[in-house]
């Protein structure tokens, strides 16, 4: 009985603000990256509802997740985030589901898939990077000092956060609810959590896990991605045992937001193959 109470209090579905839509098989889990929340998928996920069960969630510390579940030591490792996904997968009894992860979430998903074999059967990695900081021959695109620079930028912007990144009134006209939801989730961004997430993301190195992921994996690489450069995408493609590499027309680090149609089409082609 105690155990039951504890588990319901710590229900991972509530903790991670899980949204489920669609009913068919397969199940597709969309996982947002650093700086976003589940709304990052708002123009991609609905395109799959007719043919799949679509699961969206916020990482703990982002969006509408349960901030009280944020544990500094747990989330100081990507493993901590991966454990949450394993718990979600267990709670939802996933089997052979598709995991679509953006940026760092692609790596979190990879760790989760390795921890719980059978839960996920295919992976889609949107702009993935197993290590952001250069290391000998490996090109990550950034130096250690660059990451310190990022932390400073975060400090500088979060200090006056509500004013700095609060939505402009002019832009809200077309979609007031979404704007409201979005500014809500930004306002909830705790500066310390954003800093910690930045640190764990950009100082991570999960290259050792990449060759162990045997699942069929789609890598979506964009033109001139300033966060995960094409060298990193090629590294992923060369190191993953079973991957397909697609160089998109889209530019920038967030094709699921800047080019949702192309992103949807690429994922659908992969799922159909």
């Amino acid at each position, binding site marked *: 009985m105690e*155990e039951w109470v504890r588990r319901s209090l710590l229900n991972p579905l509530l903790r991670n603000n899980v949204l489920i839509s669609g009913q068919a098989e397969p199940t597709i889990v969309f996982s947002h990256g650093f700086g976003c929340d589940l709304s990052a998928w708002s123009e991609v996920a609905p395109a799959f509802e007719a043919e799949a069960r679509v699961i969206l969630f916020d990482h703990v510390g982002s969006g509408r997740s349960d901030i009280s579940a944020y544990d500094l030591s747990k989330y100081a490792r990507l493993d901590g985030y991966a454990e949450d996904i394993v718990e979600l997968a267990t709670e939802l009894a996933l089997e052979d589901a598709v995991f679509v992860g953006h940026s760092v979430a692609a790596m979190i998903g990879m760790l989760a898939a390795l921890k719980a074999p*059978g839960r996920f059967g295919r992976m889609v990695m949107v702009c993935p990077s197993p290590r952001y900081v250069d290391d000998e021959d490996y090109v990550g695109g950034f130096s250690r000092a*660059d990451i310190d620079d990022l932390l400073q930028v975060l400090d500088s912007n979060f200090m006056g956060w509500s004013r700095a990144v609060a939505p402009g009134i002019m832009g809200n006209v077309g979609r007031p609810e979404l704007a409201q939801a979005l500014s809500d989730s930004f306002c909830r961004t705790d500066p310390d959590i954003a800093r910690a997430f930045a640190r764990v993301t950009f100082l991570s190195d999960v290259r050792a896990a990449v060759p162990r992921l045997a699942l069929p994996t789609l890598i979506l690489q964009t033109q001139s991605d300033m966060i995960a450069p094409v060298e990193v995408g090629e590294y992923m493609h060369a190191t993953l045992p079973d991957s397909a590499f697609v160089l998109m027309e889209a530019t920038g*680090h967030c094709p699921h937001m800047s080019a949702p149609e192309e992103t949807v089409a690429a994922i659908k082609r992969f799922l159909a193959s």
Partner: protein
Amino acid sequence: MTSTDAADPMILPEETLDELYDRAPCGYLTTTVPGEIIRVNTTFLEWLGLTREAVVGRRLQSLLTPGARIFYETHCALQLRREGMVRQISMDLSRADGGKLPALIDWRTLKNAEGEVIGLRVLVVNATDRRAYERELVAERERAKATAEALRELNETLENRVEQRTRELRDTMDFARLALGAVGGVGVWTYDVASDRFVCDDNIAALYALEPGRGSAGYSAAEFLQHLHPDDAVALNTTMTRGLVDAGDLELEYRIRHADGSIRWVLSRGHTYFEDGVAVRRTGVGVDMTKQRLLEEQFRQAQKMEAVGQLTGGLAHDFNNLLAGISGSLEMMEARISQGRLADVDRYMGAAKGAARRAAALTHRLLAFSRRQTLDPKTTDVNRLVTSMQELIQRAMGPGVVIEVVGAPGLWPALVDPPQLENALLNLCINARDAMPDGGRVTIETANKVLDAQAARQHDMPEGHYVSLSVTDTGVGMAPQLVARVFEPFFTTKPIGEGTGLGLSMTYGFVRQSGGQIRIYSEVGRGTTVSIYLPRHDGEVIEDEDQAVPSVLVPAEEGKTVLVVDDEPTVRMLLADILGDLGCSVIEAADSNAGLKILQSDVSIDLLITDVGLPGGMNGRQMADAARVSRPGLTVLFITGYAENAVVGHGHLEPGMALLTKPFAVETMVTRIRSMIEI
């Protein structure tokens, strides 16, 4: 030159918009949606020390410092797309000389007539000064935080000291507070014998459903008790009559019926005063016990629910096990029939039937357990009763508790209500379990006891022959002052919400009703023994059905070797057959103890398949973890009923470990095994 000469407005050209754009005290840029710079003003170029040619066609992001670039992509781009603008983003731009320009940057989307975003307008403000203030502010904030922290620590130590000094005082105040809280619903009354009238306060008037405001003038005795529940009239009359004769305090609880149909329980305590041997006055208090009575009812219900909860987890596991045995056997039969191997079918049919039979027996036992009757004593073989309960108790205890049963040979029969004794035994075992949060050993022991005059005095029981049933745990134990109170109703050592405090008092009531006695021996840190003594009874023991549980160890053929650990023989057999079909050798074990012994030997094992809930002192996860100490890369497949998902499913499954839920399809099992070892 005079000012008049130069300031002729007519000969000075007007400022053009281009000039304003170019020379404004801020940077202006226009870019494509991805950020390529199309137009840029001179102010911006001068700040960065760049030429127009070097800048046009480049992406603005590439002029940001790397950290700022990440922030733009991860935070600003999303908002820009959604909101059409982002304002006052604090970022540094890289200058041509390698230095940085602290800036505040606004982005705004440009749309065409169709509303499509076709480009971005960028406004850059030089924020060198502001950034310096910010740095000072951040440093100041850090200092303030450190000071606050130091203050908090000081406060805490101070608080500790104050707390220590005032603990006694506070206890006293708490007692007072508790006492005050408890006297809600208490009133006082006086009965004058000569006038046969009651005088009372407002609380009593309200409690007895009397016309308010007349308490000090008084009510006649008949008026005062007009709402007494008729069923309690005889008892009250008897007490009152006795009170007029006997000296001393009187106490009685009875019911008052209120106009709205509700019932109030009143505990009335009074003292009679005599003059020259004649009773003249009685004074007392009335306490509203209604809430307590209702709570008791709730507690009784809660205790029932608690027992059900205790059993549900274990039973679900059990039934899943048995279902796995049944459905797996059916699938194997199907496979064998399609292969034409009809000789094997009997074996699976037997296995399925056996599992179904055990499921039925389990249901039967559960129903027998949940049937609550008035005592129906039968001549009972306590040893047999204990054996029949052993499996159920093990389920309720969980895998962390080892159960040992020591049945005395030649045990005398006892005259007792068997289901109630089962209930009492389960209750004692659950208490024992709760006293051992980290697991341990529960010993259930029966014995014949002859109490001679001296022993009888010691035990505060009549001389005679008794059958004892003792439950001993290796738990936390209790101090003597706790032991003295454990039979009190509602007394519980468990945290609020976890125990009703009724278990032992109900057991006590039942044992006393059966002519027996309960004794407790406990030592803090060592454990507790609770012994039930039941009078010996010579009579014919009523027979009941029985069963036995086989177990242990069979190695098989060649190829990859798989160790299967499961306490359900049907599941082991099924797995052995599946694995045999895959060309694997199979070693079986029925509990974690046996499993670990094999794992710690030098037998080659390619895969461990284990149930999570296991008898033998460890669960499957703990056994696998222990095995991995000497076999670091050991591949492990957990099979589990839902109840123990928590043990392995809290996200701590390591590489090389997997989980499958029971009941499983043979096909799924085969796929999973193939994904884990090469066969």
